[in-house]
């Protein structure tokens, strides 16, 4: 059994992290009745490391119902915060806390007899999650080169209230390009849209008795933490579910298992193209446990619709490099195959990966659902987000707006900015080149000719 260490950094990272632990424990409690999976869950998420450069969020956690889950030895906090400044997080707090961070990580790793993966949860737009979070990536790469680095990054939406979020994001992206194995980009606007849609469906009474009003995604029923009316709670729940489903096949049995190292192997054809768009279905529970095939098929269709993606993206109209379908619950290989055959014609795959599907079947469904599907797509549809980010960056950078806040930090120079934006441009260019092949006919490369 492999273990993972979850590192949550900054306000956003810690809030999502909390939702995640809450859900994981609920899943543990529900499955534990059978007694068999106790070891599976408790040993999988061996240790969490919580980092924040101001105390508010972490303190709340320590005083809240999850206080027994976390040990103060797993925390690193400061009081002043990073002031939404990537340079503060990366350079100042990075060097200040490097030793401490290393020590906590080493301790966590020691408790694991087979550490497979680090899950890093952070936002891109602020200072701590963005700056210190990405500093951490380099540290992890140097210290634990064999362990995968999975990063869940919350990208700022265009209406983000942090003015310098484009700077922070682009500086952080360079680090993600160079030091992350896999990045799952998510944006707040998409999460918000999904929540709004669910509320609409649930409250409209349209589906009446067939929809359970409370699902793992939207409700906190049975949760350890009190139900706050914080707008982000439901949104964080979605991300938490993503992480839970990502690891389900590694934790539970199934007829076609998929371990975390297989995600990177199958979905990252070239080292720099490691951004995966995710979608999660269903988002609300149907009361009917024996799902007729039509409903099951609907789940697959939804996974490809742009409304279910966790970031602003339309994979159906862009180019797929690879796609993974991770199914949980009472779904068999024939259901999977039927749906792949059905959906394939409407999707465009790159010429050298026409059948680029990676699939997994996990027998244990998420709590409150009879089945679920997580789709991960390596698709050029991430490009628009990056392009837009670069535009926002350039608007600020041309005027040198707020630049002095960054440049006054030791170790920061203008070259940091220009290198960061070059790195992003190079990435966008890769996606452009791939998109250019979209409309070209798929020609077979001439084969080796053998002399008999």
């Amino acid at each position: 059994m492999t273990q993972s260490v979850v590192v949550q950094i900054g306000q956003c990272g810690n809030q999502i992290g909390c939702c995640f632990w809450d859900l994981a424990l609920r899943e543990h409690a529900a499955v534990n009745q059978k007694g068999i999976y106790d070891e599976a869950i408790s040993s999988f998420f061996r240790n969490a490391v919580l980092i924040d450069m101001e105390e508010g969020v972490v303190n709340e956690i320590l005083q809240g119902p999850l206080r027994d889950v976390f040990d103060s030895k797993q925390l690193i906090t400061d009081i002043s915060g990073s002031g939404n400044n990537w340079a503060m997080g990366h350079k100042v707090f990075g060097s200040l806390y490097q030793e401490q961070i290393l020590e906590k990580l080493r301790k966590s790793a020691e408790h694991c007899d087979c550490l497979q993966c680090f899950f890093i949860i952070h936002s891109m737009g602020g200072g701590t999650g963005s700056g210190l979070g990405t500093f951490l990536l380099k540290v992890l790469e140097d210290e634990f080169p064999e362990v995968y680095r999975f990063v869940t990054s919350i990208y700022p939406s265009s209406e983000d209230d942090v003015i310098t979020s484009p700077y922070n994001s682009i500086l952080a992206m360079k680090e993600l390009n160079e030091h992350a194995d896999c990045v799952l980009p998510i944006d707040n606007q998409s999460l918000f849209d999904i929540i709004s849609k669910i509320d609409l469906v649930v409250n409209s009474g349209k589906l009446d008795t067939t929809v359970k009003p409370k699902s793992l995604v939207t409700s906190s029923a049975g949760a350890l933490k009190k139900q706050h009316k914080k707008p982000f709670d439901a949104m964080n729940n979605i991300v938490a579910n993503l992480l839970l489903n990502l690891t389900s096949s590694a934790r539970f049995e199934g007829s076609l298992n998929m371990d975390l190292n297989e995600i990177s192997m199958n979905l990252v054809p070239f080292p720099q193209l490691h951004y995966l768009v995710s979608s999660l279905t269903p988002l609300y529970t149907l009361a009917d446990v024996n799902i007729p095939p039509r409903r099951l098929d609907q789940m697959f269709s939804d996974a490809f619709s742009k409304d279910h993606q966790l970031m602003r993206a339309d994979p159906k109209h862009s180019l797929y490099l690879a796609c993974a379908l991770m199914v949980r619950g009472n779904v068999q290989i024939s259901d999977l195959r039927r749906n792949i055959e059905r959906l394939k014609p409407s999707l465009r795959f790159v010429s050298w990966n026409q059948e680029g599907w990676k699939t997994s079947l996990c027998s244990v469904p998420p709590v409150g659902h009879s089945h679920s599907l997580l789709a991960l797509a390596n698709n050029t549809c991430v490009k628009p987000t990056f392009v837009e980010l670069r535009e926002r960056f350039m608007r600020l950078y041309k005027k040198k707006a707020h630049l002095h806040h960054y440049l006054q930090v030791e170790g920061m120079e203008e070259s940091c900015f220009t290198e960061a934006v070059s790195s992003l441009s190079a990435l966008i260019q890769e996606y452009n080149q791939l998109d250019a092949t979209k409309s070209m006919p798929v020609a077979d490369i001439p084969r080796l000719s053998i002399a008999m």
Partner: protein
Amino acid sequence: MSIVTVQLGQCGNQIGFEVFDTLFSDSHSSQGLCSKRENEAYQASCKERFFSEEENGVPIARAVLVDMEPKVINQTLSKAAQSGRWKYGQHAYFCQKQGSGNNWAYGYSVHGPRHEESIMNLIQKEVEKCDSLSGFFIIMSMAGGTGSGIGAFVTQNLQDHYAHSLKMNQIIWPYGTGEVIVQNYNSILTLSHLYRSSDALLVHENDAVHKICAKLMNIKQISFSDINQVLAHQLGSVFQPVYSAEGSFHYRRNPLGIDWQVRPPISGLPPLGKMPLNKELHFNTSIANLAILRGKDVQSADLEGFKDPALYTSWLEPVDAFNVWKTQRAFSKYEKSASLVSNSQFLVKPLDMIVGKAWNMFASKAYLHQYTKFGIEEEDFLDSFTLLEQVVASYYNL
């Protein structure tokens, strides 16, 4: 005459369980449609072949289970134990904590050498339990990392350490539409390596077995369990005892002892001119066919159709290429059953397709960094392509 089975990876272990279960159930079936003495001889032969005896009477499968992560092995071991009828050896498995990540290079170059000694020791233990070793049966898939990579590595080792024993690999050909994105790379690397060290590759295609479940058996929601059971049934019908040449009551024919590698005539192959235009291509051309008949009326069955020269390549006489094995004892309660094992062109198209897709991907260099990371370089890929193109060409030209 005992066979030691090595089950590798999730696929290999899931199938292996079904195979032993089928073999056991069939041998203990009451409806053998033959005399009691006949039935007992059959049972004894099957037992000796696939199981060893334990003190409290529960037969132990002659098998070694290998996987790089524990879930599937744990399930397999407990499923067998729970059946109460047979089980796996308590220590007959090798397991690690972290899988091979669908990476052939990781299975072959990292896990293989690292765990070589442990795995070979386990196999040696099983071999020592056999009075007389027929050979090895290795069950693996091609698409993943463990079955394919470690399977190739172990087969090579078996070639080195047990050069005089036969090795047959049961290979699972993945669905054409991805189970694993890098399945074509893993497949060509597996096949090219096995070609150098295995004696026979028995192939089952997931797509074909799936069709059997859908069209012939009318199963609505097909699971891997259904697929594996069909597979096990087919394998059981081949591996269960049959009469040897001496006649009834002598179940000593070695199922692995078929001369699968047909060598072309000494005088060389006929020149590769154009295909004669009047040759009607109705059948896949074979170089060897084995029909296995079980049950009622086996002695009077008419097999003349199999001796039609049109089925075989021009440089072989049907009498040299066609074999029949028979036994009166029914298999799996079927009054009559027949199996056909064939070395023919049937696999040319699927093989060609896999080589083609792998080649396209290779040309774009996609995913190569995942393999070079563990020591499998572009030259290794090229070697594999070269070997398999030769295989494809050889079969095309039959």
